């Protein structure tokens, strides 16, 4: 029985993958993502190459001059991938929602749901198979993005990432897969829960807009230091200590601000990905366990969202009528 179930889930997953690969709109969105990502990484890598050359010249001169204490390179090749992650955060989420929408609308438009449900397939198997197929599509996409990004860093930035960095990158891209799979579930969930599939898509895109773009922007805007151009604390002639001291009077305010940011799933993905790819300078010297500790809250939030949405997906598939409503 278990092997039959596995067989059915895999059949649906393969079907999902094939159908997605033949969807014109997905291919267009994927092209936008890959081109934009490649653009951002190549542009950053070109700048990086000249800075790397400067450092190497300094290093060579220092060695030739017999200097024993040479400053380590301040450059972090992984940080060049920042644009790639930002695009996954924004466009990747739209692609995932589209994928979810297509999963449900495909069966409705083609009237194949009754055919599926008149076979020995449960709605749970349908949900699991569809999600698995979508994860396959997302992995393909993320691997393609990763390959383009790493090659750009090596070929244009003249710096190839090492094994340790590759490990951290894999973790970041792994979480990117989870991030996109969660948005996939959102798209499929809202579409399965609405009578008119396009309305479901619009609801999911509305949520995306709020979670990915608006909430992080509000959090940023509320940052006390961002209130005036050039920084409020700098304008008042206060250094870091003064800033910390004054912010002790703003704990409630800061709690509200961070809660708004915490409500954004995208912000957690961003924090994790940036921590793994040396975007934040303060994280660059930390070991992997220390990095995990620093972003533990984000990991927990990602896990919560990534668990809740597949459950919601399963629920919506179970409650979705197998036949078009109104037929007698």
């Amino acid at each position, binding site marked *: 029985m278990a092997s039959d179930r596995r067989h059915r889930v895999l059949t649906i997953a393969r079907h999902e993958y094939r159908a997605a690969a033949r969807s014109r709109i997905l291919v267009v969105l994927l092209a936008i993502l890959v081109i934009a990502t490649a653009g951002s990484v190549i542009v950053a890598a070109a700048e990086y190459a000249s800075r790397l050359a400067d450092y190497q010249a300094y290093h060579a001169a220092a060695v030739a001059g017999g200097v024993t204490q040479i400053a380590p390179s301040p450059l972090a090749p992984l940080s060049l991938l920042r644009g790639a992650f930002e695009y996954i955060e924004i466009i990747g989420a739209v692609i995932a929602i589209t994928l979810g929408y297509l999963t449900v609308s495909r069966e409705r438009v083609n009237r194949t749901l009754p055919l599926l449900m008149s076979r020995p397939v449960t709605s749970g198997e349908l949900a699991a198979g569809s999600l698995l197929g979508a994860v396959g599509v997302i992995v393909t996409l993320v691997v393609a993005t990763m390959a383009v990004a790493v090659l750009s860093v090596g070929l244009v930035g003249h710096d190839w990432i090492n094994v340790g960095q590759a490990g951290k990158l894999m973790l970041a891209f792994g979480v990117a897969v989870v991030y996109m799979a969660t948005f996939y579930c959102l798209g499929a969930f809202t579409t399965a829960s609405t009578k008119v599939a396009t309305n479901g898509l619009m609801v999911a895109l509305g949520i995306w807009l709020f979670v990915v773009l*608006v909430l992080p*922007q*509000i959090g940023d805007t509320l940052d006390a230091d961002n*209130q005036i151009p050039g920084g409020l604390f700098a304008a008042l002639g206060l250094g870091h200590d003064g800033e910390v001291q004054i912010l002790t009077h703003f704990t409630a305010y800061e709690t509200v601000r961070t809660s708004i940011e915490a409500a954004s799933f995208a912000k957690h993905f*961003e924090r994790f990905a940036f921590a793994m790819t040396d975007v934040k300078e303060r994280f660059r010297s930390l070991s992997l366990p220390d990095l995990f500790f620093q972003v533990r809250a984000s990991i927990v939030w990602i896990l919560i969202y990534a668990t809740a949405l597949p459950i919601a997906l399963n629920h919506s598939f179970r409650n979705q009528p197998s036949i078009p409503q109104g037929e007698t």
Partner: protein
Amino acid sequence: MITTVTSQQLLSLRRQRVFLAALSMFVAMTAAAGVLGWSSHNTIVRVYDEAVKLLAADGQPTPPNPFLLKPELSLLSNMVVYVPLLGALLALLLGHLSLTDDESTGLGRLIFSRRVSRTGYAVGKIAAAAIALSVIVLVAMAVSVVSLMVVNQRIPPISVLGRLGLFYSMSWLYLMLFALVGMAAALLNRRRSLALLSAMGAWLVITFAIPQFTSALRPTSSLNPIADPVGSSQRFFQITALARPISIAEQYKAASGQILSTAAPEPGWQTALRVVPLMVFVGLLVAAVVILVRRHDFSRSGNGE
């Protein structure tokens, strides 16, 4: 005939729940921009008070009041982000709904079996979108004026109202562009979802991808009200920067910065020039929509979701 198409379309929009929900979201965010402005005002007051105490305890002189550094209309600087994000998507949806309903219900066939000219139909639809967006923009402006009154505890002077009027007029034009993109996409794609998603693809490219290539702006930098382009000496940007004048998302933000006085001032003609590409694109899209409607095969309407 044009007025019949226009009024019918406006009535239809008023009955569309999805459109009303998107509209409410936009108005709510306009109000939120006001609340954020008020919060910003409060934060500055409190930080300034604390800073004065702290610096006095250290025996240092009182710093200048930061309000002098903060222009009055910066209270609404978030609107400069919400218009290209929420507003543009709302406009896309409006343009999309304007045509897809007639298409998917098969009404197109009924309409053109009567004495209706295609150009008149297209103009009627565009006029309906223009009127709907005017109403939306006027509501947003009213909310902004109320926010300014609440925060500053006075009626805004005429000069401020004039600037607000100018900002929202330009925003209307910006939104029209996306309504027309929504319409064009609906005419180019038979399936509703494909039409909506390809219009969104265009929005993603205009809002995020083009500014990256013309100004090396990372996608999340596009979310900041005032985003200075990253200075880059690369030849790549020296070439792509030539296309910056037609990167309308950037030009919209830059012109808004001038109108709301939240950016370093520049000559008025320079700001006016920033709006010209936007006007040209809107003109071109109006022509494109009219031509597409004239060529569209409405005999196949009613077949796609």
